[in-house]
């Protein structure tokens, strides 16, 4: 059954490509039809309650789900993944499947969580995938890393240069450097430079979320430089100007600071009358991993 369903999906993919070349038919039509077939296989497997655990058809479920995930991601209908995830999570067999199947499963669940902005679960799933992925599958490890990196960066963990070099992901190098230093200019440049790659992988929008982390890092530097807990708003404006962020004025600075306070990245308050940001004397910039 595994062979048949895999072939079905590959055929559907090829059919899609052929139709695209000819310019006919609705995009995703062939793949949707393949998905329907796979769903009926899935139902047969899932409903197999009568045989013993060794012979149960339920062992086929995870493989099928992985195939379905691949199709749903391709046709961009991620919401259809939800019932499948529910089915596996409620199953008692979920940790007994082969490692390969579980790695693929967690990879897709992690990606879906990223899409839904659930970054902590996404990090757990993708980390699991990465560590359990076989050493020899470099290509797969790289794929997982493409999605794991942005999530980890949002949680405040920057990848090392060696890691990026090892997996040929130098596109992230400038992004990492920029976020770590609070360098908005470099971040914008890096995002533009590798735009096509990031958009194609679907992580461009998530990388844009790193901007708020970059602001936080930049402002933290300002705090350390001035060594006071009553920081003039102008100082932040100057720091932004140094980063060549020209079109921001004092009101926008206040808004960015308000956002950081609201999200818990800064502990303090803004006094408009004194034009100052007053931060807590204790731990005003909590570590990133404790905030998200």
């Amino acid at each position, binding site marked *: 059954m595994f062979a048949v369903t895999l072939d079905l999906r590959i055929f559907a993919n090829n059919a899609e490509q052929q139709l695209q070349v000819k310019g006919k038919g609705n995009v995703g039509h062939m793949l949707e039809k393949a998905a329907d077939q796979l769903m009926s296989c899935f139902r047969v497997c899932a409903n197999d309650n009568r045989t013993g655990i060794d012979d149960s058809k339920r062992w086929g479920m995870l493989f099928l789900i992985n195939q379905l995930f691949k199709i749903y991601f391709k046709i961009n209908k991620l919401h259809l993944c939800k019932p499948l995830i529910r089915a596996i999570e409620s199953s008692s067999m979920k940790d007994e499947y082969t490692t390969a199947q579980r790695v693929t499963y967690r990879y897709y669940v992690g990606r879906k969580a990223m899409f839904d902005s659930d970054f902590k679960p996404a990090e757990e799933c993708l980390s699991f995938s990465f560590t359990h992925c076989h050493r020899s599958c470099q290509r797969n490890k790289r794929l997982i890393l493409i999605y794991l990196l942005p999530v980890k960066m949002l949680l405040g963990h920057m990848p090392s240069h060696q890691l990026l070099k090892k997996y040929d992901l130098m596109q992230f190098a400038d992004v990492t450097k920029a976020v770590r230093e609070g360098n908005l200019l470099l971040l914008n440049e890096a995002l533009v430079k590798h735009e096509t790659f990031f958009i194609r992988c679907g992580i461009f929008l998530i990388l844009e979320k790193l901007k*708020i982390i970059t602001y936080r890092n930049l402002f933290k530097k300002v705090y350390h430089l001035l060594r006071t807990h009553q920081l003039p708003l102008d100082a932040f404006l100057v720091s932004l100007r140094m980063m060549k962020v020209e079109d921001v004025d004092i009101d926008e600075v206040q808004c960015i*600071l308000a956002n950081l306070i*609201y999200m818990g990245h800064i502990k303090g308050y803004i006094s*408009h*009358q004194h034009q100052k940001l007053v931060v807590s004397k204790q731990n005003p910039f909590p570590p990133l991993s404790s905030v998200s």
Partner: protein
Amino acid sequence: MNNTGMSNAWHHSRRGRGHRHKEQGRPNRERTVEQKAEDSVPRGACMTMCPANELRQREAQNRLHRFEMLAGTERDRLPSADVSRAVKEYSRPAAGKDSTRATDLRPPSVLLKTVCYLVDDIAASSTFQPWTEVYSFVSDRLRSVRQDMIIQRASGPDCVAVLEKSVRFLLYASYRLCGQPLQYYDPRINDTHLQESLSWLLESYRDGKHRHQEEFQALSLLYNLGSTHALQHVLELPERIRSSPAVQLALAVSRAHSERNPVRLLRLAQKLDFIQVCAVHRHLLPCRRDLLLLYSHGHSSRNCRYPLQRLARLLSLKDPLAAELCRVCGVNVSGEWVSFSKSSFSEAASGDLQCRRTHEPVDDEQWNCPAGSVIHGCA
């Protein structure tokens, strides 16, 4: 409905054409599947805005709309139809109903003329009041136009123009009728039609060159502000379109939204032209509330105060309206000063301030764009 259409079209192709019987042999079998499919797509032949059958029927049954009646006969027991002003109405597809008769379908060129009539002579005219009735009539007739296009599986520049004008009309209506009672205007129904037309339009843009594409890609992004799907679509557009000023501005607004920077968003919104404001306006009030939320947390301090006038400017609202929005959101206002407190902000009553009241721009500029030019796009 499709099945009926196919079988009826087949009937059509055989009726009155005896030589078809000869073709039933080998030649027919050799024709490709594609050619057979082409034959069965209905082609419109009705050159008037309303098919003759329907006109006669509706006139006899007294089902003409006020705007379609011959002047002077409105009060008669059975008003007469004005052939130059009657427009085919939308009718739900049903089993047994043949929607594919060529004499009932209008070809794309006639559809475009119909849409221009609806926009210039009805929607843009100030003689027809109230505008809710104009909207009801025009949106129904536009729906029928789109239906004719679907049945004929039409495509091409005329269809694109029809869709573009429909989108502009619906966007304009969503702004002008915002807040009207549900029985006259339902924003959700308008939204359904708008999304349908927009996605059809964007799909049509995939082939060939279209003069107004940049404008409508921008409008789609603004209307769907916050949608990852819409944003991803724009990011995948070719460089030439993405770098156009309209799309760049829409992207900047979208970026301000996803970075949760309402100050920047509202500031950028001032640069939008009228139709763009129509597209984005339903997102502006939630954005203003978000600003108050963020400031309630960021400026939360017992001793500090914020000047109301400055806040009003940030919100791009007049002072009294800004004060009212604050009150509705639980933000304390006394005189010229606002005191923010994270514990007092509340979303609970924020539905009380209607979006409609925030429509006028602060500078008292008269939004006097004649509706016609807005909808045709030649402002």
